[in-house]
């Protein structure tokens, strides 16, 4: 037996298919993380010099070459708030309907799912033009944070719905059966068992959605506009962070240093939100004892 084992070990020192496969997956993984680190290091390297408390709080001056991004951050936050406040209820509702109420093989259910798949693949510029036509012009909201937020909501809905639906579906059928057998109403089973079970998946989807929304430029240029003043309400036009970065690096000569600093803020913000959401979800789940 030890002999056979040794032989096997010796054999594996050569370059066989297994080792080749292992090597290549290691290489690709390293390449991906290397790319990410490079990007991060580059932005941090160029941006960190400009980063300061005044940069975060003061409004931009001289088309953004100098000054800070205070008003931009407020606009971005408001746009995101509008987007989530409208997308989350609609998303959860649709996901619940798709996973709990649609009979398998229902034509309407199939239609809704197919629409979502198509919507998920629509380029954001199309969402921007659609948002402009619907919210800015037809509904008369003009270039405003409200229009931008609602457009983003349309854009992140597909991803929100499909992750939430997947989360609900992954809740074991035993919960549904046991709940029904105990005379629990469908609503009670949803609120107490199924939605909590779907929460991790939903939060993951939410994070993807927020990431996509915060990074969005094309859909916002046509809807929330690019006025860089401090907004006074959601009916004001407001410039999102990604639009600001785009504008600084493409249209403003000498805007690059501030563009890098703004990009660093964007990435840092996303990282913080992601980590916080994961941590909070875990704590909440443990308190509800979903996980033992």
């Amino acid at each position, binding site marked *: 037996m030890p002999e056979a084992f040794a032989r096997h070990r010796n054999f594996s020192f050569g370059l066989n298919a297994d080792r080749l496969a292992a090597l290549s997956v290691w290489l690709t993984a390293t390449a991906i993380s290397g790319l990410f680190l490079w990007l991060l290091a580059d932005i941090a390297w160029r941006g960190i010099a400009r980063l300061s408390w005044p940069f975060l709080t003061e409004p931009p001056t001289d088309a953004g070459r100098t000054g800070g991004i205070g008003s931009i951050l407020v606009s971005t936050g408001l746009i995101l708030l509008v987007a989530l406040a409208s997308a989350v209820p609609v998303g959860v509702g649709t996901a619940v309907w798709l996973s709990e109420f649609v009979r398998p093989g229902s034509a309407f259910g199939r239609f809704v799912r197919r629409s979502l798949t198509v919507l998920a693949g629509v380029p954001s510029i199309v969402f921007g033009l659609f948002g402009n036509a619907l919210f800015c012009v037809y509904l008369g909201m003009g270039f405003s944070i409200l229009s931008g937020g609602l457009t983003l909501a349309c854009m992140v809905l597909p991803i929100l719905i499909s992750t939430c639906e997947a989360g609900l579906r992954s809740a074991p059928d*035993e919960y549904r*059966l046991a709940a029904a057998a105990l*005379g629990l109403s469908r609503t009670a089973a949803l609120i107490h068992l199924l939605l909590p*079970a779907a929460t991790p998946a939903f939060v993951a989807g939410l994070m993807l959605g927020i990431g996509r929304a915060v990074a969005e430029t094309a859909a916002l240029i046509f809807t929330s506009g690019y006025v860089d003043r401090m907004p006074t309400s959601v009916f004001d036009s407001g410039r999102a962070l990604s639009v600001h970065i785009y504008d600084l690096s493409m249209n403003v000569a000498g805007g690059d240093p501030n563009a890098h600093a703004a990009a660093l803020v964007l990435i840092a913000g996303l990282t913080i939100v992601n980590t916080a959401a994961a941590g909070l979800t875990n704590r909440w789940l443990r308190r509800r*004892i979903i996980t033992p």
Partner: protein
Amino acid sequence: MSPLFGDESKAPVATEAAVDSADPYTLGPLQAGPPCCDPEPLIRVEDLSLYYGPKPALEDVTLDIYRGCITALIGPSGCGKTSFLSVLNRLTDLIPGCRVSGRIRLGTLDLHDPNLDVQTLRREVGMIFQKPAPFPLSIRRNLELPLREHGVTKRSELDGVLEQALRDVGLWDEVKERLDASALALSGGQQQRLCIARALALKPRVLLMDEPCSALDPISSGVVEDLIRSLCGRYTVVIVTHNLAQARRIANYAGFFWVRERAGCLIEFGRCHQIFESPTHALTAAYVSGGRG
């Protein structure tokens, strides 16, 4: 008093002695059927047929389930025993394309009545599944969630019912220190007893059990079996089991299901000892002696 049923005072009382007289671990002739058997039907099933789509899964089942007795349903897999159980608490409603015909009466209640409050029915007719299905909540919340849903909200009352139910299934001493710990951390046998406690907490009249021991190890299975036996006389129990020895040990009545032309049907129903000792049907004889199935 139960809202759905009539007088409870006539419920037969099983004497422990009658059940325990036979050693539960030998297969010798069992003096089956405690003297609960002044049989009084609680559930009457007539000409029950059940279809999944156009295909019948169960055909022309007629039998009575007696109050306070344990009725075992035996037979090979796929002969519709579980479907039969699901008819009794209308869990069949949840299955798309499932259609049930025939007359089923539970006490004075018509189970097909469209105006029937299914939630109340299911409170009266509890069900235990093959795989223990505790909710991913604390032990306490597992019991309280259905109670609250059925309108029990007073803290003192909740605590009382919780302790009583856990004592009934012999789980109290094992978990009283950790009621707020996750129910998923319990062992399989404890989880199954928790599920039984959860059903008992609602004070049901009927308990349906779908192979409640088959996912458990022999020791836990024995504990749960003793528990089921102790329910005799206090609840009406219908249990599906593939363990013939178990059916023989615990049941007062037994029904033998078989598949005929790809649809399940009831071959024979009677006192447990009669089914096992002197079956009238050749198929039953072959099945209980291990010749078929």
